[in-house]
Each structure stands twice: as structure tokens, then as C-alpha cells.
């Protein structure tokens, strides 16, 4: 007979919780949680405004969600749901410390252990197997914590939910600026959150690399060898270079570097990062092929130096032979990867600033326009720069429209995405966003390029370097600000 799935839940009686913090201490002792970290914490939330104030105290931890975004975002399968239960656990051997789950968790319940793997509350799985309650529940001096199986109608928690008024600890918390915390542990936890940020170098390269690949493959597909020499033969080299820099940055951002191979021992259908890592691995060669096939025309000095090496010579010959096939394959892949960074971020449920699928197209267009700017910087052909500036002008306009839609999307979704949008609307990232990205990175180059089209003499490096500055600024802001945005407003 198939055993019924256990749906473990914790019920906190906020009427009796006094916020003593014994649960936190019990957890630390039971699970040997290292100093500076904690798996559970006390929240004291003040609601209302003076004189109608209410305070609620409660103990919080990982909620072992029914649809755990952490598990779905994990690229290696290290985060998993334990069979027959709803308990989400971390397989520390598989964890690479990529911190995707930390960004995905709407409760900020996860942290990186000093060893490098991610850890969190396990509902004291080892105690449950012995028939005991979790350590925090057993310790609670006011008996405000109750633990049990929701699928069992006779369990303590099921009966409590029938007899008392209750609410699910969900995202619809009242944002209150007047909260106070009394416990050292909670403060310490905040410190660990800030140190668990993902590296802001992670995605800048990806969309730009995708952009260079789009340009190079299009120029090859349409045989624009004469008209667009830089696009055809020069720009491809930037692909592998940017990609390698970015992959190195990604590697250094892993907290558990020795486990990097775990990305490639599995494929997780639900994890954008897993899709990304496989695609990158599979299509690195494509990018190199495009570079090698046009190296002779584009970078003759490099070509002369490396062509004498037998292997490289063979590779160049092979690449030239299959150049058009590589270009045809590269184009869809480049579009996929350009979209990918935005989609990767938008899938992190725990960071409301990113929760917009428009982010994918925004990153794609911005990467494309940044790559066009690279062409403008490199190209010495006046006709080509003139043509590329026109395309870049269109790309900038499209980007402006998409960014507007993105902000509109944030402002009209939930109160939490609205809170997140305020980071740009008077919040700490407003200046970087409006002056740096929109002003210097989009509007000024737009005006300059428009003037250029009207026949004014504009040194081409000006709009081009501004676009590159804006593109990098945008990625930097998005990654930084996104990780400040949160569902947790206490």
C-alpha cells in the first residue's frame, strides 16, 4: 500500500509567543549552526499607526513550501524534496554554492555555510525519523509552537487549524517601517544575507556576448563581407574573450568551487541556470568557430601568429568549411542566450524587482545594442559605422520602450514589486538608473546618433562608449538592486 505523503507544517501561536529566542538557541545547539548564522529567527512586527498599534511576535524558518522555488531553481539538483514528505533539503555534496536558491527564496531562509554549501532549516529531519518533534518545538517554553502532518486530520496542527483563526505566513505581509528586532541572531542573519549576494559580473558578459554573436552570424548568413567588414570578420573575436572573462567571474562567484563539475552531471529542467550552463558549454565551440573562420580577414596579425600551429591551422580550415552552418546555428543560440540572463533573474521568485518576464527582452536588446557599440568602436569603415549607428538608434529606442514597460509592469503587479520599483523611483538606485543608465546610457547617445544621421559630424566613439557604459551600468544596477528587493518587509 502506498504511504500517504506527509505534509509537515509548523503552527505558531502568536498569542503565546513571547519572542524569547529559545527556539533559535535550541536550533543552533541541535544542528551545530556556526556562529553568525541561524536557521530560524524571531520576527517582531509592529502594525498600524499610532495610537492603534499592534505587535506580533513569531518564530520563523524555512516554510518548506508546497512549490519550493529554491528546488526548482537549483541547477544541480542539490536542493530537493525528500520523498514522501514536503521537506526541502540540501544535498551538500551536490551544492556548488551558486546561490540561485538564495535569490529564489521569498523568505530569505537560506545561507551559505563557511564550507561553501547552502544550508537551511530541515525541520530537524533526523529527529523526525526518531519520532521526535523539531528541536525548536520541543524547547519552546510557552508551547506556542506546534508541529505535525497536515494530511493527517487527527494531527495536532490539523485540529488547531480547525479550531482557531489562522493565516498562512505568506508574502502578503504588511510592510512596516517601524519594526524592531531584539535578538542578536536576527541581526546576524541580515549580515549573512548581504554577504550572500551573487557576483555582479555574472551576467554582464552574457548578453553582450550574445549580441556579438547575433551580429557576426547575421553578417555571415547574409554574406555582408564587403559592406560590413567589422561585423563579418572582426566582432566575432570578442565573443570567446567576453565569454571566457564572464565564465571565470562566474566560477569565482561559486562558494563551493570544487563542486563546479556538478553543473554537468545533471540537467534540471526547471532551473534556468542549468539550461544556461549546458547551452554555454555546447555553444562555446560555435563562437570559436565563427572567430576562427574569419580570423584571416579580421585580425591578420593574430592569424599570422597562430596559423603556424598545426592544430590551429586544422581548426581554422575546419571552421572555414563549416562557417555558414555555424552561423546558422549561432543565430538562434545567441537569441536564446541574450534572453536567458533576463529570464534567469526573472525566475528568482524571492527578488520582486526581477519578477518580470520583460527583463528577458530588455537584456537581449541591451546586449545587442552594446555589441553594436563595440562594432562602432572597432570599425574604421565609414559606411559601416553609419549603417550600424542607424541600427543602434533603433535598438536604443526599442530598449527605452521596453524599460518603460518593465517599470510599468513592476508598478502594476503586487505591492512588493511596487516597493521594489521604488528603488528606482526615489530609492537608493534612482540616480544610477535615471542619470547613469537612462540619461547617459540611452538618451544622450540617442540624441548624438540622431544628429549623426541628420548629417552632423559626431565622433563615433562618443555615442558608442556611452552605450557601452549604459549597458554595463544597467546590468550592474539590476543585479545589485534586485538583491536589495525582497518580500520580507520587517
Amino acid at each position, binding site marked *: 500500500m502506498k504511504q500517504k505523503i506527509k505534509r509537515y507544517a509548523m503552527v505558531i501561536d502568536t498569542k503565546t509567543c513571547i519572542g524569547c529566542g529559545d527556539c533559535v538557541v535550541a536550533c543552533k545547539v541541535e544542528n551545530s549552526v556556526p556562529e553568525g548564522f541561524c536557521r530560524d529567527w524571531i520576527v517582531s512586527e509592529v502594525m498600524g499607526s499610532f495610537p492603534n498599534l499592534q505587535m506580533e511576535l513569531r518564530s520563523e524558518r524555512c516554510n518548506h513550501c508546497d512549490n519550493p522555488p529554491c528546488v526548482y531553481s537549483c541547477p544541480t539538483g542539490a536542493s530537493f524534496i525528500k520523498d514522501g514528505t514536503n521537506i526541502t533539503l540540501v544535498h551538500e555534496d551536490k551544492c556548488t554554492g551558486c546561490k540561485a536558491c538564495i535569490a529564489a527564496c521569498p523568505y530569505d531562509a537560506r545561507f551559505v555555510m563557511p564550507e561553501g554549501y547552502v544550508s537551511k532549516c530541515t525541520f530537524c529531519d533526523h529527529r523526525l525519523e526518531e519520532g521526535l518533534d523539531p528541536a525548536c518545538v520541543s524547547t519552546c517554553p510557552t508551547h506556542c509552537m506546534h508541529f505535525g502532518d497536515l494530511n493527517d486530520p487527527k494531527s495536532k496542527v490539523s485540529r488547531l487549524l480547525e479550531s482557531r483563526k489562522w493565516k498562512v505566513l505568506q508574502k502578503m505581509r504588511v510592510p512596516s517601517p517601524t519594526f524592531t528586532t531584539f535578538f542578536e541572531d536576527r541581526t546576524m542573519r541580515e549580515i549573512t544575507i548581504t554577504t550572500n549576494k551573487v557576483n555582479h559580473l555574472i551576467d554582464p558578459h552574457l548578453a553582450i556576448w550574445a549580441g556579438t554573436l547575433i551580429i557576426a552570424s547575421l553578417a555571415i548568413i547574409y554574406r555582408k563581407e564587403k559592406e560590413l567588414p567589422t561585423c563579418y570578420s572582426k566582432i566575432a573575436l570578442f565573443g570567446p574573450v567576453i565569454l571566457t572573462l564572464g565564465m571565470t567571474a562566474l566560477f569565482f562567484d561559486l562558494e563551493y568551487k570544487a563542486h563546479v563539475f556538478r553543473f554537468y552531471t545533471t540537467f534540471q529542467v526547471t532551473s534556468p541556470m542549468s539550461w544556461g550552463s549546458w547551452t554555454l558549454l555546447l555553444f562555446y565551440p560555435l563562437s570559436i568557430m565563427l572567430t576562427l573562420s574569419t580570423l584571416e580577414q579580421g585580425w591578420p596579425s593574430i592569424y599570422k601568429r597562430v596559423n603556424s600551429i598545426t592544430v590551429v591551422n586544422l581548426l581554422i580550415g575546419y571552421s572555414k568549411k563549416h562557417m555558414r552552418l555555424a552561423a546558422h546555428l549561432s543565430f538562434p543560440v545567441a537569441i536564446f542566450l541574450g534572453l536567458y540572463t533576463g529570464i534567469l533573474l526573472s525566475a528568482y521568485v524571492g527578488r520582486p524587482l526581477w519578477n518580470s518576464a520583460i527583463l528577458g527582452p530588455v537584456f537581449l536588446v541591451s546586449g545587442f545594442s552594446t555589441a553594436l557599440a563595440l562594432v562602432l568602436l572597432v570599425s574604421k569603415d565609414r559606411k559601416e559605422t553609419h549603417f550600424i549607428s542607424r541600427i543602434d538608434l533603433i535598438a536604443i529606442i526599442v530598449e527605452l520602450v521596453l524599460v518603460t514597460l518593465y517599470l510599468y509592469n513592476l508598478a502594476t503587479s503586487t505591492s512588493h514589486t511596487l516597493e521594489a520599483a521604488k528603488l528606482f523611483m526615489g530609492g537608493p538606485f534612482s540616480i544610477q538608473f535615471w542619470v547613469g543608465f537612462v540619461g547617459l546610457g540611452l538618451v*544622450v547617445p540617442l540624441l*548624438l546618433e540622431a544628429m549623426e544621421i541628420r548629417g*552632423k559630424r*559626431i565622433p563615433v566613439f*562618443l555615442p558608442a562608449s556611452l552605450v557601452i557604459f549604459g549597458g554595463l551600468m544597467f546590468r550592474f544596477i539590476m543585479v545589485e538592486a534586485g538583491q536589495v528587493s525582497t518580500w520580507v518587509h520587517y
Partner: protein
Amino acid sequence: MNILTKDKYLNPYLAGVFLGIVLLSAFVFSGSGLGGSGAMMRTVVKAEQVISQNHVDNNVYLSKYGGTDEETNKPKDPWESWLIFEVLGVLVGGVLSGGFSNRLKVEHNKGPRTTRRQRFIFAFLGGALFGFGARIARGCTSGIGLSGGATLALGSWITLTAIFVGAFSFAYFFRKEWI
């Protein structure tokens, strides 16, 4: 060689009126006048903060702009000032108007007998001296001369006079830079 004879420059008297309007709107919208050296000074303080916050804290003049706040225990951001944005706007506006009148290019305005290197060295030395003087005078030509002069502040008129007297009396010694 004469810059003023080049095409497409605005009539200086008309430009003066426009500048006055800009100055007036600066007072209306930002609550303070125009300035230039303040932005540079604040950028220097920002750079010094990166190297040694301690030094900025211990220096009376620098700590006014970038010292550690005693209440929040965080260093003040010297860039949190209208001047920074104003100067940024001046740069952007300059580039746009230059582009608009077709004279956006890299050039070195110098006398026929000076080398480019000399020109840079003299410009740098002169700029450094002027910047230092501007901070002693509590403002440069724009801050104290233009904004202060427009409000008829006595100190501003004295400074303006000093700037012109200084320029006239030293022009003789540096004339060979330009002829």
C-alpha cells in the same frame, strides 16, 4: 585662430541673457546657484575617502564634505550634491550643443609657438592654482563670480575684481604662450 570668429557661436550678449535665466532657474529649482569648482572638490574628497577615510575625518575642511556622520556612523557622500549633477549636465549639454553646431572634435587650442605638451603642463598648473584659489575664495568664477555677483554680494565683486586684475597683470608674462 580667433575662436570667436568661428561660425555657429551664439551672440555673447544673448548667451549672457540665457545664462542669467539658467542661473535664476537654478536658484528656483535647486535652491542654490551655479558652480564648478565645488564639483571638482567633492570628487577629490570622494577619491580621498577611498584612500583614507581617516584622513578625511581628521581634516576640518574635508570632513565637512565627507566626514563620518556621528549619528549614523557612516561617512557622508560628498557626491550627494546638486553641483555634481549640474557639472554632469554641463558636460552633456556641451557635447550635445557642440554636436548640434558641427564642432564636436578633439582639438588643442594653443598658441603657434607652444607645443602640445607645454600647453597641457601650463593648463594643468594654472588650473591647479586656480582651483586652490577658488577654494580659498569659497568659489570659482561661476560659484562666487556669477552666482554671487548676481546677488550683489560684496565678497563676490571683490573676488571678481581680483580675478580680472590678476588676469590683466599676469597676461604680459604669459603672452608668448599665445602669440
